[in-house]
């Protein structure tokens, strides 16, 4: 059984399961379509939330980014988990107690304003489309790297699958497919990690291998890794060249962004009570932590393996017969370029430029002690995908990883599609422009909006190939969510006095400043010396979140207090059980 067989086997099997679940759990009413009928058990919702949350960025890119950034990669680890503490303590139970369908629903009702609702819709759409482009890109990478399918065809297949279960099943279909997708992705992530941990540290628990000694020595694995990378002229693995303030702000932007992401928040509308929402956040973080505590170990192991197999290897060109030439190099006492490298070279994710013309691949950092220039340029995204091959794991593990990467991308894409379709059919049509629509018409509108969103997302994936690494594309969505949505939701719950004028000005401030800053430094002028207080575009959402909140508070204080019934609504959502008498 070869690797291609196993890859097709797992991909076809898992796709079949997702479609089967979609048909079994078709939504019959708008309540089922938007919030799965409000009766998903906390643990099941936690698992669905974990799959919803862990995207192509978490699965494909994160360990690779950590492998190259070392300590600098911690921003993703803390940022994308710490947000759940904010969600559980500050938002989820109260939004569930409020008891409606969408994030703009809360903003529109709490701030008694159609304008606020429409601005919240714009923020939600902005965040979701930024995010979904990254997912579609991930699907394309997985397909083109493993199945030899064209990048764009890969995206089209992914679109077709999501289309079936999101449009048919709505939130109900998505919930149960996400549960299946979680199982696939966590298995696919941890199995190779266990194999690698055993090989490198001799400990089969990756989290323990991470802090343990390198196999067969008394030297801690991380100490050895530090020596290996500094010898090649890289920065120490446990250090970073980012400034402390930037690390602080990026971590914070990712945390508050996580808490403000509409596709995460709406998952907590599917459980039956505020208490269930709290529990569900705990379950979600448990399931997420299973991957996130393994990721730093995978990152460190990947860095080891890459250097070990590629550095100082003798290159074999496409014109030569790989097997014959490799055998000859070994016979001469050399190290041939590994087969996985040749497999992945075709995708353009790895580049080798023989600067000194010796036919040997020198992998070096910027400060190489031997003064040799770097000749190898790997893309961070391939690391998790190529890891099983790098570590020479069996073919079925590789097939499983492909299925896992697709599960991660598709589950997140589906959650985002729900936000987009409900924002259009529920918030824009039903609640703003055509309130006399029947439930049946609203359902049809929701399905049409989901269908249109799938097509737009696919096009974004296809045309956004010039965008940077998947995880970095996604990082922008967090800045926008942190600065535009988090402050108005938080203040809406914890400050009764907050009024519609304050909310509208806060959302606009956050959206415009954050988008402007990111756009300017990513697309107009990349001069890092002009950064505000040395904060990168990835971290700026945190600073502008405070600005948005300050603007909201000041505007509120100079305008009239909200009506009495709104103040009572706020008191009601703080005490569980009030609104579901």
């Amino acid at each position: 059984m070869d690797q291609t067989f196993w890859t097709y086997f797992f991909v076809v099997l898992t796709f079949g399961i997702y479609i089967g679940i979609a048909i079994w759990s078709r939504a019959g009413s708008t309540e089922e379509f938007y919030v799965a009928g409000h009766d998903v058990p906390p643990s099941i919702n936690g698992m669905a939330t974990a799959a919803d949350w862990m995207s192509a960025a978490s699965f494909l890119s994160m360990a690779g980014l950590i492998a190259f950034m070392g300590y600098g990669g911690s921003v993703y680890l803390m940022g994308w988990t710490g947000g759940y503490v904010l969600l559980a303590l500050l938002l989820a139970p109260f939004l569930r107690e409020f008891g409606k369908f969408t994030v703009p629903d809360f903003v529109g009702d709490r701030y008694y304003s159609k304008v606020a609702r429409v601005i919240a819709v714009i923020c939600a759409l902005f965040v979701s489309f930024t995010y979904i482009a990254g997912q579609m890109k991930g699907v394309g990478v997985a397909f083109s790297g493993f199945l030899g399918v064209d990048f764009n065809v890969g995206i089209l297949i992914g679109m077709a699958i999501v289309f079936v279960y999101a449009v048919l099943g709505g939130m109900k279909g998505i919930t149960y497919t996400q549960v299946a997708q979680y199982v696939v992705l966590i298995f696919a992530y941890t199995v190779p990690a266990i194999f690698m941990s055993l090989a490198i540290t001799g400990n089969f628990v990756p989290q323990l291998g991470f802090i343990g000694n390198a196999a067969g020595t008394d030297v801690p694995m991380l100490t050895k890794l530090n020596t290996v990378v500094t010898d090649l002229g890289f920065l120490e693995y446990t250090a970073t060249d980012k400034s402390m303030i930037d690390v602080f702000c990026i971590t914070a932007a990712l945390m508050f962004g996580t808490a403000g992401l509409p596709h995460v928040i709406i998952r907590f509308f599917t459980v039956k009570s505020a208490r269930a929402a709290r529990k569900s956040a705990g379950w979600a973080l448990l399931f997420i932590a299973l991957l996130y505590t393994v990721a730093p170990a995978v990152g460190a192991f990947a860095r080891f393996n890459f250097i070990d197999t590629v550095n100082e290897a003798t290159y074999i060109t496409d014109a030569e017969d790989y097997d014959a030439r490799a055998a000859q190099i070994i016979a001469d006492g050399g190290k041939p370029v590994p087969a996985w490298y040749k497999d992945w070279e075709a995708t353009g994710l790895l580049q080798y430029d023989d600067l000194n013309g010796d036919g040997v691949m020198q992998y070096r950092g910027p400060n190489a002690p031997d003064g040799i220039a770097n000749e190898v340029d790997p893309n961070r995204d391939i690391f998790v995908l190529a890891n099983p091959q790098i570590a020479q794991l069996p073919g079925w593990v590789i097939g499983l990883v492909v299925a896992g990467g697709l599960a991660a991308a598709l589950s997140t894409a589906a959650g985002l599609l729900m936000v987009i379709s409900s924002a259009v059919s529920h918030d824009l049509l039903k609640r703003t422009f055509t309130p006399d629509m029947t439930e049946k018409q609203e359902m049809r509108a929701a399905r049409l909006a989901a269908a249109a969103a799938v097509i737009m997302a696919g096009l974004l994936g296809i045309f956004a190939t010039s965008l940077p690494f998947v995880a970095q594309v996604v990082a922008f969505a967090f800045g926008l969510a942190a600065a535009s949505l988090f402050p108005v939701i938080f203040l809406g719950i914890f400050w009764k006095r907050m009024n519609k004028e304050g909310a509208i000005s806060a959302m606009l401030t956050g959206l415009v400043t954050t988008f402007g800053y990111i756009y300017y430094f990513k697309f107009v002028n990349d001069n890092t010396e002009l950064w505000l207080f040395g904060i990168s575009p990835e971290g700026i959402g945190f600073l502008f979140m405070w600005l948005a909140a300050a603007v909201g508070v000041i505007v509120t204080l100079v305008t009239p207090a909200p009506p009495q019934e709104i103040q009572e609504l706020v008191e009601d959502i703080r005490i569980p059980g009030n609104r579901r008498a």
Partner: protein
Amino acid sequence: MTDETNETGPSETAKQAYWRSAKRLTIGLLFIWFAVSFGAGILLRPWLDGFAIGGAPLGFWFAQNGAIYVFLILIVIYCIRMTQLETKYGIKG
């Protein structure tokens, strides 16, 4: 809101006491949340890296693994304490 007591629901004073306790609990837990991530993982990392947990520098470990474990414990404590508060003040939850 008026002060009349609902026959089945909790009284106004109970609700206010519940909300005060809930806020106190939230602030306490968020303090720990900040301390393990932004504190141990970022601001105090250079100092904490002088210590080790197993073979990993302590500050680095907090940033890559330790903070996540504590986050999880914080949510568990929150769930347990909030349920206790709801029982104490007769709130349905």
